[in-house]
């Protein structure tokens, strides 16, 4: 009974240690990850829901396909992956440590035949002398050897960068470190979003699931602006932010420029430029109307959509306005408004009037020239808000990974043995990686080796 139980545990243990499992997991992760790149993730849009059958929708939802990277089975795969990594390391690391700390000092007959790199040197002097001379040689040309006497022969063992055998385990550890960082981030961090109208401040933001989260300080948006390239493509989205504690600006956090790719961080919370738009409340537009035959312009201040009435009964209203017209009318820049003008008893006419191009405005309309003098409308800046205390752990893991991969791939554990017997000495060499490069080094060493006179 006991033995079968033992062997069952052994089987499970071996399963979790096995590289076959690793391959299976890597390939499964690769294949399943594809699902989430094909199916939409997160909140589904109604169009998509309407486009697939109910049965499919239900099955996919049950399987977590619409949030697959957080589904139980994907997380489970990642756990098994970690477990595989841990078990495999527990099983192998002690061997590797032993291999490093307790190297093969004495080469048996059988082992000697397995080397592809070997060289023989004949000498007539006493064995002791050979041992001393060759120890000195190895120490000078390669690395100081450990000398062991065995059956009347001397075994000289020298090695270099034995510790690089641990590189692989640094890589594996680094993966776990990245996971730990990600877990810390998901437990102790948050992400959210906030809109701030120019000239106003906020002290909280909207979390992912809609609840309002307090910041613990105030953020004031002094100004938001957009710049464009001559082609009309956006060049810069810029918010000027000030952090307030107890209503007072915090030194160093006053009038901070925040653009895409240049966020602002305060007390571990980072604000990223993300979107913008017109503030809806209380905006008014300034319109001037000049008679074509000359005379003083009449000035109006109207809210968007509200009707303005001229002395002669003509009415107009601002349908929409923008502070930068370039994206809608390439070749023009600055503020502009689309207005609808209704002359008494006539059909409404709509056209665009610019702030910077009075000559263009003058080409429109009949005997009244409409002009746009801008607005007191404000814009809001949309900021992404994030706090992730785990991110440094993730970067630590990444650094470990890069270092570990470098060690594992590009460094090699080089070993050289010299067996000194009566009348001759034989040198053997072996490297854990990049045999070709070591072969050249070994041949170089061999050349000097054969020139030694004992």
């Amino acid at each position, binding site marked *: 009974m006991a033995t079968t139980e033992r062997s069952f545990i052994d089987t499970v243990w071996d399963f979790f240690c096995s590289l*076959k499992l690793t391959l299976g997991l890597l390939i499964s992760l690769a294949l399943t990850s594809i699902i989430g790149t094909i199916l939409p993730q997160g909140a589904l849009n109604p169009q998509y829901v309407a486009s697939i059958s109910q049965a499919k929708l239900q099955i996919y939802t049950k399987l977590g396909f619409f949030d697959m990277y957080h589904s139980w089975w994907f997380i489970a795969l990642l756990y098994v992956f970690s477990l595989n990594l841990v078990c495999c390391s527990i099983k192998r690391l002690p061997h590797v440590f032993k291999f490093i700390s307790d190297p093969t000092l004495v080469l048996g007959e059988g082992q000697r035949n397995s080397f592809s790199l070997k060289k023989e040197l004949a000498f007539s002097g006493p064995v002791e002398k050979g041992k001393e001379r060759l120890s000195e040689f190895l120490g000078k040309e390669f690395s100081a050897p450990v000398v062991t006497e065995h059956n009347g022969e001397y075994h000289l063992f020298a090695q270099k960068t034995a510790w690089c055998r641990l590189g692989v385990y640094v890589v594996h550890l680094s993966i776990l470190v990245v996971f730990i960082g990600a877990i810390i981030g998901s437990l102790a961090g948050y992400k959210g979003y906030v809109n701030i109208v120019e000239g106003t401040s906020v002290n909280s933001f909207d979390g992912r699931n809609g609840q309002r989260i307090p910041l613990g300080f105030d953020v004031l948006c002094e100004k938001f602006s957009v710049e464009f390239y001559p082609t009309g*493509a956006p060049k810069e989205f810029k918010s000027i932010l000030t952090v307030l504690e107890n209503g007072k600006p915090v030194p160093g956090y006053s009038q901070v420029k925040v653009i895409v790719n240049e966020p602002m961080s305060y007390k571990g919370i980072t604000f990223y430029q993300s979107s913008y738009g017109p503030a809806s409340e209380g905006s008014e537009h300034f319109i001037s109307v000049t008679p074509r035959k000359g005379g003083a312009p009449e000035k109006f201040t109207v809210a968007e959509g509200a009707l303005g009435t001229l002395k002669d009964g003509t009415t107009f209203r601002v349908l929409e306005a923008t502070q930068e017209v370039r994206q809608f009318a390439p070749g023009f820049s600055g503020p502009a408004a689309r207005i609808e003008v209704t002359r008494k008893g006539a059909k409404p006419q709509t056209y665009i009037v610019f702030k910077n191009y009075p000559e263009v405005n003058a080409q429109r309309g009949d005997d009244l020239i409409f002009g746009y003098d801008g607005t007191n409308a404000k814009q809001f800046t949309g900021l992404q808000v994030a706090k992730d205390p785990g991110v440094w752990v993730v970067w630590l893991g990444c650094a470990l990974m890069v270092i570990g991969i470098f060690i594992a791939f590009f460094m090699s554990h080089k070993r050289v043995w010299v067996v000194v017997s009566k009348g001759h000495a034989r040198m053997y060499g072996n490297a854990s990686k990049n045999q070709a490069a070591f072969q050249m080094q070994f041949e170089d060493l061999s050349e000097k080796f054969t020139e030694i006179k004992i």
Partner: protein
Amino acid sequence: MTSSMLFNVTTFTYLISTVVFFAFLASKNKSLGLVGSYVAYFGLAVQTVAVGLRWKESYDMGVGHAPMSNLYESIVFFSWTIVLLFAYIDLRYKYRIIGAFVLPFALLGMAWAQLGMNTGIEPLVPALQSNWLLYHVITCFLGYAAFAVACGISIMYLIKTAAEGTDSSATAGGLMSMFPPLKVLDDLNYRAIMIGFPLLTLGIITGAAWANYAWGTYWSWDPKETWSLIVWFVYAAFLHARITKGWVGKRAAWLSVIGFAATIFCYLGVNLFLSGLHSYGK
């Protein structure tokens, strides 16, 4: 002289190099191999100048940025890195015939870029205005190029095993004798991936660092990110496969081909078929 003229010369040169390499394959004439290599080097030199010139031209236009900001520029850079790696392997390992299986990738890239794409220099949109763009693109594409080379070598491996496995007729045997031995191909495949894998890892990390810096999230399971991770998994599987018996040789070669197919999908397929943060400016 403009960069776009030089890019046309580059494309044409790679075409000649590819043709000469195919002739080398067919004729087994050593000097043809040499010519193929030299033509490829010439193309590489021209392309290097062209990339530098395009960089300068962007500054002359007042929208200065490294020429790696859109699909066109990235394909050009991809071709450049492929030929660069081929040159390295040619000089280091002296297996010139690999050119016949690697140069076509570079030619395909350049031809598509020059003939099928808008080649104009565009200003950078705000999202791309960051030094991270440079680090991210360079590491990713060097990695991709190494995988392209590994794929070419794996195809040679698969052809050679197929030819030697079934029959050893004189012609097949003759042609196959030009290929490096299977062991060497297997080893070169591994070496190319040993260059590509760390670079891809760096590419993913710099991408994550950039995303975190610009958006506050280092990983958001965006399709491009996910696909790069898929590619990473495939090559991690390849590396581990070598340690397990039964997964070397042919299966490893297949993994390398699949890995490159995934790489290409990650690079192009995601942009063409899926949507996400990385769709290059239209």
